[in-house]
């Protein structure tokens, strides 16, 4: 009986939390399916309207920006490339950095690691001018490489992988050594498959991090062709339902990534082997 009551209470609390998070999004979504006129006169809507296809296709394909050079679809593409690039590169660099720090007899490995970790205190916003100067001297302004490279090494991801590698028993490496593995095949055959869940978690974190970038793409791009979704949000003046439709669509890419990697992501975060 007590079990039943406590489970009911748990679910009640969870449901309230869920509602608090879902309802605003639902209202935005429902409102985005009405015409602007209707919303301006009747306020926010809780029920679906019948302008869904009309609103969303208008927003997706409308030429926008100061010079009307970019569509929302292109912005999604740009954001996706940038976020994916940052996520993939961060995973690769931090996997390898952690491998080097843990498995090779690097002198002062701990000090080097903490130096890497300290870079967390220097976020992109703080080093935005020097980063911009470097990128512009490399002629990477208005390129995807310029958008991606300066944020493609993550101290926190290196930290995660390092802690994970440290938890792998030495015997595994020794057994693999006797089985004739070298440092490269140990990385490929053992560390990467073993850290699969961790890779998924880091990938999601870095994808969302990259997707949410605002200041850096704002500075790095002068051509509207490289605008990202987050930059686009501020240019979405005009009708209120268009803005709502854009907001709803801007949430889709991260949500898709999380849905696909969810299982691995949760295992990766709660891993305590």
């Amino acid at each position, binding site marked *: 009986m007590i079990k039943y009551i406590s489970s009911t209470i748990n679910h009640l609390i969870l449901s309230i939390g869920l509602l608090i998070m879902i309802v605003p999004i639902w209202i935005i979504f429902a409102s985005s399916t009405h015409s602007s006129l209707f919303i301006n006169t009747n306020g926010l809507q809780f029920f679906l309207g019948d302008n869904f296809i009309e609103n969303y296709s208008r927003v997706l394909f409308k030429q926008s920006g100061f010079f009307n050079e970019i569509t929302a679809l292109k912005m999604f593409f740009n954001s996706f490339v940038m976020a994916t690039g940052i996520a993939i590169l961060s995973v690769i660099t931090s996997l390898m950095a952690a491998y080097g720090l843990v498995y090779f007899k690097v002198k002062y490995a701990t000090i080097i690691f903490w130096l890497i970790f300290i870079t967390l205190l220097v976020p992109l916003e703080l080093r935005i001018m020097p980063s911009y100067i470097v990128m512009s001297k490399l002629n990477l302004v208005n390129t995807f490489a310029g958008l991606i490279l300066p944020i493609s090494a993550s101290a926190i991801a290196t930290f995660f992988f390092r802690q994970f590698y440290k938890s792998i028993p030495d*015997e595994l490496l*020794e057994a*693999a050594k*006797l*089985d004739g*593995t070298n440092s490269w*095949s140990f990385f490929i055959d053992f560390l990467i498959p073993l850290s699969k869940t961790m890779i998924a978690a880091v990938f999601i974190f870095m994808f969302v991090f990259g997707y949410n970038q605002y200041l850096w793409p704002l500075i790095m791009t002068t051509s509207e062709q490289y605008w990202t979704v987050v930059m686009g949000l501020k240019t979405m003046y005009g009708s209120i339902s268009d803005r709502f439709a854009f907001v709803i669509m801007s949430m889709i890419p991260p949500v898709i990534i999380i849905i696909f990697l969810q299982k691995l992501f949760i295992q990766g975060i709660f891993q305590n082997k």
Partner: protein
Amino acid sequence: MSFLELQNITKIYPNGTKAVNETSLNIDNGEFVVFVGPSGCGKSTLLRMIAGLEDITNGEISLDGNVINNIDPSERDVAMVFQNYALYPHMSVFNNMAYGLKNRGISKEEINNKVNDVAKLLEIDQLLTRKPSMLSGGQRQRVAMGRAIVRNPKIFLFDEPLSNLDAKLRNQMRLEIKRLQRQMGVTSIFVTHDQTEAMTLGDRIVVINNGVVEQVGTPKEIYSKPNTKFVAEFIGSPQMNLFNCKIENGIAHIADMRINLNNSANIDDASLGIRPDDILISDNGQHTCVANLVEYLGSDMIIYSKIGDQEFSCKLSSKINLNAGDTFKFDISNTLVHLFDNTNGSRV
């Protein structure tokens, strides 16, 4: 020339600890040798140096006529079974066993045949597609052994592989390891701190203490003629009784008990050892003691008693009717005693 030769092997860790000190040992082809000693005595370090997982500070190891000091572990052609099995958690049983073969560039077909043969031999052929996390302790143990066997190495190294199993499974696996080793005739070194394992498995036993080899010999030699006081205490269960005593003209003085050793030794500080089952209890024995405690073990019982202030135990058949508090008479035959000099612990 022996198959495996260790010459004056020394291991000093960077922090200055001397784990192994000037150890020399020859092991013949096909022999089953057990390294036994208390934990921290350097037996695992010695094994790991043979495997190539630990640098050698001093000395030389040669295998099959070649010095292997600086040869990479993977090229030494040795296989090791680890204490925690060290199975590859993300690979199936088949891949666990095949991985070493793949790295040696063996063809897929041959790998298949070899793995299947070994799996049949170890009765794990039903488990080949499973991951290690889905196996029981005993099954993991078999896979770990399969991984070693499938490579057909020159030497098997076992690093306390049975210590994680429950008692029943341990006995079973012990027999199996012995049987497999006989069947395949591969030179094997087995490290353990369990003297029963050492006695039952080894063709020869190497007793190690504090990084030094105390004695090398067949189980029988080690048991019946321990070279040092340490070996005497370490091998045998229940432990050998060691009485501190003074020897004058071949007569041992233990409290008010006198034992004629039939020699002319004179030692001020000696230990007289006698195994609990070598104490002969009879109604017309020379010595009398009171049984302080009786432990009943089924077929046997162990009696704890004292001579002067020195405790000792004797093991006898539980058919004899003796209870705590009773007095009993016994003899100590001078052919069954072991005499050690306490100044250096060596046998006299």
